[in-house]
């Protein structure tokens, strides 16, 4: 792994822990605002959730607290090439939540009413015919859907790598292959021990994903976080049949066709996590569950072979909202972790929020719901 420059006891403005999309985006935005930034990563950039997720860039069906962030992030995704010099394979094919019953349709009505109350209009209800027109291969029993047309998906690998490369070219230093094992406060300075290195900075950012809880504890914050392993499967290539990224209202499913024709199937079934080896493995029983949902909702998929499966390790908070904001116990430290299986889409905006918090002491977007002391 290329490591930028390595350093033994250098001094930075900001140290970011974790080179997932949150850490990389934060590092880039801080560098763009003139800060000298070091990113410390124990494995590799995008090695965990950020590099292996489903790539859904969605505001649809999100918790209302996340909507302003998701919408603002979407603006960046749409122009991602300007920021990163790569399009990250971002495609705006819309996202869709399919209703399988009257009960599901009623939930869609409730959702749209709730959003209207908050002043949002981007989620629209589709009736059965409109649904069929949008996704002709959907099963006959499906009643309708909720659609947000101006969003889509990107390639997690290309996006994460894009942030990594851009951060490097903006002068961010990387210390890769070094786990942070200890953090000390020495006067007004953070001293971080990572592998054989000892580095210092004025400000500390915890973007350690599923390990964010551990890192938070190192600076005195107690945030409950579970490590979980959402599962993905991918099929062999099939001729193009599907535009939007699809979910189902009452079952766990996320379903989309990639540019190369393979179909990505996810949706939150959990695999096994080996905490020590930091490896997650799919559970065949859960794969079967997912396969059942897919063959119910998209019967034409039945004969398509599953080619590969995998899991990513992700940090889940009790309310499934991320932790974004200042440390409770310490000065000059901020968190952005625990994205609870839907943080990829938020990556671009989280970097801006963190950079604002560090440089201006405040964020333009409402981040109070994500406070570290809410639990």
């Amino acid at each position: 792994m290329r490591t930028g420059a390595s350093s033994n006891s250098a001094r930075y403005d900001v140290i970011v822990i974790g080179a997932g999309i949150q850490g990389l985006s934060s590092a880039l935005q801080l560098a763009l605002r003139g800060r000298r930034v070091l990113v410390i990563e124990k494995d590799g950039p995008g090695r965990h959730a950020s590099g292996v997720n489903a790539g859904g860039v969605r505001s649809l069906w999100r918790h209302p607290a996340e909507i302003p962030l998701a919408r603002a992030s979407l603006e960046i995704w749409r122009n991602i090439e300007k920021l990163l010099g790569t399009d990250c394979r971002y495609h705006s094919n819309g996202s869709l939540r399919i209703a399988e019953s009257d009960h599901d349709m009623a939930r869609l009505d409730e959702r749209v009413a709730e959003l209207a109350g908050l002043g949002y209009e981007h989620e629209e209800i589709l009736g059965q015919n409109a649904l069929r027109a949008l996704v002709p291969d959907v099963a006959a029993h499906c009643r309708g859907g909720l659609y947000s047309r101006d969003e889509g998906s990107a390639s997690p690998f290309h996006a994460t790598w894009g942030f990594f490369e851009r951060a490097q070219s903006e002068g961010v230093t990387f210390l890769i292959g070094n786990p942070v094992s200890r953090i000390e406060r020495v006067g007004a300075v953070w001293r971080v021990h990572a592998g054989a290195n000892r580095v210092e900075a004025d400000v500390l950012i915890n973007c350690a994903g599923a390990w964010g809880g551990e890192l938070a504890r190192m600076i005195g914050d107690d945030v409950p976080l579970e490590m979980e392993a959402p599962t993905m499967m991918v099929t062999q290539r099939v001729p193009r049949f599907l535009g939007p990224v699809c979910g189902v209202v009452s079952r766990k499913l996320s379903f989309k066709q990639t540019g190369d024709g393979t179909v990505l199937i996810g949706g939150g079934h959990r695999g096994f996590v080996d905490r020590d080896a930091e490896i997650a493995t799919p559970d065949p029983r859960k794969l079967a569950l997912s396969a059942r949902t897919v063959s119910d909702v998209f019967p034409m998929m039945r004969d398509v072979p599953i080619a590969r499966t995998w899991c990513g390790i992700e940090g889940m908070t009790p309310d499934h909202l991320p932790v974004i904001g200042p440390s409770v116990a310490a000065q000059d430290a901020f968190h952005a972790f625990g994205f609870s299986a839907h943080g990829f889409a938020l990556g671009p905006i989280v970097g801006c929020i963190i950079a604002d918090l560090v440089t201006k002491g405040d964020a333009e977007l409402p981040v109070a719901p994500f406070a570290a002391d809410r639990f």
Partner: protein
Amino acid sequence: MKADVMVIGAGPAGLSAATEAARHGLKVMLLDEQASPGGQIYRALARNTPPPAGAPDILGEDYWRGRPLLDAIDQAAVEYVPGATVWTAETDPLTVGYLKDERSFLRAARSLIIATGAYERPVPVPGWTLPGVMSAGAAQILMKAGGAALNGRIVLAGSGPLLQLVTCQLLKSGAEIAGLLETTTTKDYLAAARHLPRALRARDLLRKGLEMRRTIKASGIRVHKGVTNLQCHGKETVDGISFESRGKPDRIEADLVLLHEGVVPHVQMSRLLDLSHEWFEPQRYWRPVVDEWGETSAKGVFIAGDGAGIDGARAAEASGRLAALQAAAQLGALPNAERDEQAGAAFAQKAKEQRIRPLLDHLYRPPAHIVCPEDPSTIVCRCEEVCVRDIHACMETGCDGPNQLKAYSRCGMGPCQGRMCGLTVSELMAKQRGVTPDEVGYYRIRTPIKPIPLSALAAMEADEEVVAS
């Protein structure tokens, strides 16, 4: 219901393991994806009969020698499931998932014996993906599967005992052989020579090898030695193969080109289970680390046969028996003293078969120009059409391992699950980085090790013991 011993693969290793385990009163299940038992060497044996006296015996006496193994499995109390493709496995608790008749099953077991054998090392030379180019083993499968005559001018290229065997079998079948291009060099002969004394103690194996050489020589077919720079040519299908022999460029017209550079252990299953592996330098492959009984780094999980390292069919048979004896002892069906007594003959047979291996391993060392192709346009990953040049380009932008390469280039992400490119990718990256393939590592293998239709996955039937999770 939970099996005491689950055996995967019904080749000589799996057949003898299942038979032996059943002999000790254990509940045994034997899964194999083929329609009939026999594995690679005895493929389709149950459906073939020896030729009448006087007619040429194309497949040879070693083939018919598998009969007793098939008879034994017929009589043993073994639940043998043909046409069952294993697509997943887990340790702790031991679980095996297979696909049969468009349904998937998840079964629990107390011991697992993996006897999935070997497969032919991919031979990535320019043009190897052209129709009309296949492996020597694939041609042999056609012969075993019902004597489909191989028509047209055939050229065989590469090295290894199986290449010699298939050449002889083709000669007997009356096929038209336009050439045999051996990549073995004088240097290989010299390196092998020091292993000759040990091989002399496996006289009949040595004799068979020499006999094959004599048959080939006597046939008068065109043979080139020390061949390099192999390239298959053709537009729609192959029409010829060019090469250099002792520095001189040459070309032979051909309708069928058979490539072969030895066989390597199937490590998909052992990688999936995350067992320990070691790099075997003489033959440049990975093999799972096993003890004398074939037990791996996971308790109760055994590898028998060529899947643990290439020792040949007779050794495979012995190692299957050894794994079963140890499994029986671990499951309390056989006191250790009796296990040791009954294991004696199998240990002796295995040791005897292994005597010739150092000679073969060094004589038929896969050449560097094959394991690590240099021509930038050579395709490495057939499924996703990734070539040498693409891999080098990815490495230049910071990609330094096989798993990362998948994300960069889709290399290894096709239906074969990386079996056809895995070794080549590790070799190429090792060379570029100036380290050993072992340092570079291999693809991480995940479920499913064989593609499984969505509907079969959806229709999963699981043992009671394995549903809870």
